[in-house]
């Protein structure tokens, strides 16, 4: 049977397992990834199958985790590193920004960095401080990194495999609050769509709604809601955040004339701004309205009982739709 129904978390597990079976140089490192199977159980069962040389419970030190993974990559390994929560990637920021990202460049292409950094990403799970961050813009600005943000189980499986196969470093932003959202995964047939391309996940004509990762289901919900008011929303799942697939978005915007971007990260300085600027540059004469953005505020991620106000929700996305159509 080639199609299975899996929650996103388990699709990633399957992707990791199949990648490890296919290539013995793939190994997993991080805090609690071994016997426990990770705090989200994403590496569940892998320690049992592959042992502690390939599924490594590391000391509790993120720079050390990423830095030793760099060394392993130098030695021909393909380490998959788990950062336990988005808020704890920053101790490794120096290694990621000055080492992982630049190694291929600074060695004149002589050394490749096939390193995957998995990060459970985003909010909405009622967590304590530092467990709900969306730091994608803090990585997308740095050349040399690639960033994937799957929103479905199928993408989660294949992007995991493709990220591991890529000779460049890839940050995988896993949609934490959608970990248990199920979807069909076809593990036999490689998708035709490249992981670095965006996907139109719902066609529409009045307005383009761009989202990624955990915000894609929300965007689809908004499109469905808009349809009831006879507004036809085209939803694009960005899928790759570095590179951003500008042509697919621009194609859509040339047709709809309007773009709304939704992400959980603070709007200010978020990736939405970059996309807005690029799309405006490419589609200036097609735009009926400025590109609008709905996202987090210019505040730290707030206490969990207020996160509903901070996070984009259906009302706020629909408000964005209304404002965009009012132009």
């Amino acid at each position: 049977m080639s199609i299975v129904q899996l929650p996103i978390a388990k699709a990633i597990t399957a992707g990791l397992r199949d990648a490890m079976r296919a290539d013995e140089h793939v190994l997993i490192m991080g805090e609690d990834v071994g016997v426990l199977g990770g705090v989200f159980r994403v590496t569940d069962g892998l320690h049992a199958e592959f042992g502690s040389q390939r599924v490594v419970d590391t000391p509790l030190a993120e720079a050390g985790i990423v830095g030793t993974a760099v060394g392993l990559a130098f030695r021909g390994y393909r380490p998959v590193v788990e950062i336990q929560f988005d808020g704890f990637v920053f101790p490794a920021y120096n290694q990621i920004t000055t080492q992982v990202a630049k190694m291929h460049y600074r060695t004149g292409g002589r050394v490749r960095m096939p390193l995957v950094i998995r990060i459970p990403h985003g909010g909405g799970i009622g967590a304590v401080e530092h467990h709900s961050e969306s730091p994608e813009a803090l990585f997308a600005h740095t050349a040399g990194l690639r960033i994937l943000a799957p929103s479905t189980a199928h993408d989660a499986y294949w992007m995991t495999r493709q990220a591991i196969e890529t000779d460049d470093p890839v940050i995988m932003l896993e949609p934490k609050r959608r970990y248990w959202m199920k979807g069909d995964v076809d593990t036999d047939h490689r998708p035709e769509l490249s992981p670095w391309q965006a996907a139109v996940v719902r066609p529409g004509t009045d307005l383009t709604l761009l989202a990624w990762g955990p915000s894609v289901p929300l965007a689809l919900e908004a499109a469905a809601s808009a349809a009831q008011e006879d507004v036809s929303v085209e939803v694009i799942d960005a899928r790759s955040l570095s590179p951003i697939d500008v042509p697919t978005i621009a194609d859509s915007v040339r047709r709809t004339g309007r773009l709304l971007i939704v992400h959980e990260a603070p709007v200010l300085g978020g990736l939405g701004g970059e996309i807005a600027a690029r799309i405006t540059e490419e589609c200036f004469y097609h735009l009926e309205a400025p590109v609008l953005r709905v996202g987090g505020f210019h505040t730290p991620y707030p206490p969990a009982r207020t996160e509903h106000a901070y996070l984009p929700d259906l009302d706020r996305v629909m408000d964005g739709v209304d404002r965009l159509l009012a132009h």
Partner: protein
Amino acid sequence: MIQLLSADGTRTPHEEFDEVLEAGGLATPERLRGYYRDMVMIRAADLEATSLQRQGQLGLWASALGQEAAQIGAGHAARTQDYLVPTYREHGIAWARGIEPWRLLEMFRGISHGGWDPHELRTHPYMIVLGAQAPHAVGYGMGLQRDGAVGTGDLERDTAVLALFGDGASSEGEVAESFTFAASFEAPVVFYSQNNQWAISVPTSVQTRVPLAQRSRGWGIPSVRVDGNDVLAVLGAVRSGLDSARAGEGPRFIESLTYRMAAHTTSDDASRYRPGSEEEEWAEKDPILRLRRHLAGLDEIDEAYVATCEEEAHDLAMQLHHHIHGMKDPDPMIVFDNVYSEPHPIVDAEREAYVQYLSQFEDEEAGR
């Protein structure tokens, strides 16, 4: 490992620590009963918090069960003027510093990120980013040095800092850098690590192959390893360390061997990675039981006192229960508060836009 109270409550003398305990009046029967009561209280609050989490009242709870002596002892070893820098599992420390337990619960409920005034209570905010608090502790100590609050010989005024972190957090580079700064500047800081054997599912042996206490020796920082389930050993070590630091003798490091009796948090399932037998073994070393046995041996505790403590603990748990159950969710507008201390046009504009956005719904509701 230094132990003043064995598991069955037997008292072993310890020259240095006994002197310190004596000088501070820290081991009088009355004080001992006080520690006992504190530990019973904080354990009850802890268990209630776990139950509140199960009831959906808290998002998460990180239990300190089993670490009561390690925390109550350290908290009371500090003098009033000292500054304490906790992690996120320091409920006994908080209790000893006079922080009401419901303030902790509020954080785990998700209504605030920090529940008290660090200046007023001389206790740093809880810290979730592992190790990040350690350099703060050293910097605070450097401030004390500049304030002339170190080494004047006045024990009631000279001040020291207690920096807490776990066995897992000890691996973070920021902790090592803190050792470097503290050693270089001879900062009045006592580093205090509760080695509770586990960092979530990872045993301490992954963080260090030698006793953790040895770590600071690489910087020439003297260290001791104490039984963290022995409130007197903890009191002696921490008081002695802080007094030496306040006297201007530089940093010290204490490894406090204890055990996290519960799972890592309410989200964790400890049975996935550690045997029940280990938990049972440590139950034998329970810090509360041990102190009670010791007091009983001294004939300084009676059933009535034990019962009173339990009643009070029960009352506390009930109070917490009612407090939390009666709690309203915060006004979402607080999201915009305190991002900056001075006016900020972007935050102001976003706040205003959000107010306006919300007012649509009011209009809609009014319109109905």
